[in-house]
């Protein structure tokens, strides 16, 4: 490729201030969350010089080809394009309008979530939960040594705020034992089953044509994608925050994890969770979710997931973890239909239900009875012990301990 002209000093074919304006436009896009670097601006200017500036439509297409790189960026790009390039006189006005919109979407950057922790650190050092450094050093998944049994078995809903802080620190150290699966790629291995001809030949050459041995290769293993679907409706509110801490710890540990929240609608928070600081991550999450502690429409949320997301996140043998109490007022048959579809797309479907904390839990609610036949595992998720158990044994064969059919057998139809 020929060297692109520098964005700032580009010789402008029109003799005007096109380069400057394109650059300003790109900066607006960047503020709106579309990553447009200087390289792309240079590309756009180069493209414009190829004679694509004869009409507004061509100009639009050209800039779009250079600046947009994901389909979901397009609505914002269209808005910004209309506002920026239509009426130069009104630009300042429109710009401020647009920026107000953007800042509403993004949130003030100075309100960083870490500031709460910083304030705590300044004013009351004793009250701090287990400090960051301790977390960093501790690599062990088990935490039985540092936490007493009472806390481990205490229901999240009944914890005091200090206990919650302690529990969160414990959650932050949790690691998920995921089961890797073989891929179609190979890697060198002394105990592999297949011959590595390429390495054989290179060794042979190094030895001047003598055959010394046969290096072997084996299949590379890889973790399958993991998808969390977490209920954030009112009936779950006592657990939502703890579970989000749990999910954040897991999501930051491994790759290929997607996280969705649902109440009355479904929100993908995978990108929001990609912050190492849990407070910052949860702050971003709370901004992008609009239906905290409202009602639940499980069937509707599952439908949206199945239709909009399943093809994009459930490829390559994904596991799905569904966290909900299963209490909703929708048509049970609808929920069952969507569960059936989800089951078909997922390799393994695990349901975590905080309601299992009650010793006498019975699958009586129609929503629960509709969902149970379609899950592979049915587990509790109401205290540290249950989550710890989950993290360690999620993909181990469990000899039917979490078989959903057990619950269906126990309770005849209500």
């Amino acid at each position: 490729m020929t060297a692109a002209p520098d964005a700032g000093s580009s010789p402008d074919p029109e003799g005007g201030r096109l380069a400057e304006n394109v650059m300003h436009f790109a900066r607006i896009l960047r503020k709106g969350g579309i990553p447009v670097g200087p390289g792309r601006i240079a590309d756009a200017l180069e493209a414009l010089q190829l004679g694509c500036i004869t009409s507004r439509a061509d100009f639009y297409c050209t800039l779009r080809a250079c600046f947009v790189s994901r389909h979901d960026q397009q609505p914002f790009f269209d808005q910004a394009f209309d506002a920026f390039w239509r009426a130069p006189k009104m630009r300042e006005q429109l710009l401020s309008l647009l920026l107000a919109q953007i800042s509403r979407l993004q949130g003030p950057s100075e309100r960083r979530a870490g500031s709460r922790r910083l304030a705590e650190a300044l004013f009351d050092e004793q009250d701090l939960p287990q400090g960051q450094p301790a977390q960093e050093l501790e690599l062990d998944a088990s935490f039985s040594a540092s936490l007493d049994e009472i806390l481990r078995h205490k229901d999240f809903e009944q914890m005091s705020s200090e206990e919650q802080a302690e529990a969160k620190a414990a959650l932050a150290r949790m690691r998920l034992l995921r089961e890797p699966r073989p891929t179609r790629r190979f890697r060198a291995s002394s105990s592999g089953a297949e011959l590595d001809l390429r390495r054989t030949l290179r060794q042979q050459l190094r030895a001047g044509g003598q055959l010394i041995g046969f290096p072997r290769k084996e299949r590379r293993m890889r973790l399958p994608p993991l998808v969390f679907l977490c209920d954030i409706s009112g009936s779950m509110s006592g657990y939502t925050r703890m579970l989000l801490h749990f999910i954040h710890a897991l999501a930051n540990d491994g790759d290929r994890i997607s996280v969705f929240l649902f109440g009355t609608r479904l929100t993908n928070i995978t990108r929001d969770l990609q912050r190492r600081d849990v407070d910052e991550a949860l702050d971003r999450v709370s901004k992008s979710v609009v239906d905290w502690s409202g009602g639940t429409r499980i069937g509707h949320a599952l439908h949206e997931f199945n239709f909009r997301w399943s093809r994009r996140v459930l490829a390559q043998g994904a596991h799905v973890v569904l966290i909900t109490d299963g209490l909703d007022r929708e048509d049970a048959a609808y929920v069952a239909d969507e569960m059936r579809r989800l089951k078909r797309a997922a390799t393994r479907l695990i349901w975590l239900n905080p309601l299992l904390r009650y010793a006498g839990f019975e699958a009586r609610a129609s929503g629960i009875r509709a969902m149970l036949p379609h899950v592979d595992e049915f587990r509790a998720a109401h205290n540290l012990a249950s989550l710890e158990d989950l993290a360690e044994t999620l993909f181990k064969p469990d000899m039917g301990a979490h078989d959903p059919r057990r619950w269906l057998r126990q309770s005849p139809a209500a």
Partner: protein
Amino acid sequence: MTDLPVSIDATLEGLQAAGYVSDRPLATVLFLALRMRRPLFLEGEAGVGKTEIAKVLSRMLDRPLIRLQCYDGLDVSSAVYEWNYPAQMIEIRLAEAAGTVDRERLSTDIFAERFLIRRPLLRALEAAPGMAPVLLIDELDRTDEAFEAYLLELLSDFQVTIPEFGTIRAEEPPIVIVTSNRTREVHDAIKRRCLYHWVDYPDAERELEILRLRVPDASERLAREVTAFVQALRGEDLFKRPGIAETIDWVTALHSLDRTVLDPATINETLGVLLKYQDDISRMQGSEVERLLAEIQQELAARGRL
């Protein structure tokens, strides 16, 4: 070989002449990709004609088409190159038998070009000047991230590095079309090196034009009704909405059944050509089909009176 088009309008005409009904945004982005020698990244639902664009481009410019179908686990030895190990072993044995085993010479002899098996990506780089092929990297979202990362060198510098041999650089960069069905997000690093275009379902007018071009024998009324029906069907709550490929298949099917107009019974019998999921079919079959058909026939009649 034909020269590259000189303007957007020329691109549009060229596509039309090669049998592809394009809209202006697509023509613009194709023109830019050709002129700026950038790979073109096409994303969109299955069956909207992404692969077809590459094929048409190769016809339009009269260049060979090299296609790499991606799949999970695709690796360098099946995408770029592989050494011909058996032949190399024999070469070593021959050298031994002749008693001329010299380590230095042997390694240059063994890793010579004649033992290199070229796979699609390498072949795309080795074309004669002026005959750069169209390289179609189809359904990139099906591979894993490791292969995407490998493509970075190829897409930005049009070169491939073979450790034993050296770097092979294209004298003239191929015209690269990358497609994705968005079953997962492709990494930004790849997209940054490409021009991006989202291929959408065509609107009614363009779809009708495509049908006229691809199935010229079908009756005009059938084509109109099918277009309206499929457009209406895309508005329904379906798991997989029918693409343009399905529309063409359907018209061909109806035409081979000697139908010149749509009727509910025929639609119900041939719905499997349009919809590929049992849930969708059972949802639409029967009364829903009749309702949609009545709606579009009313609309077409109303438009005919105007």
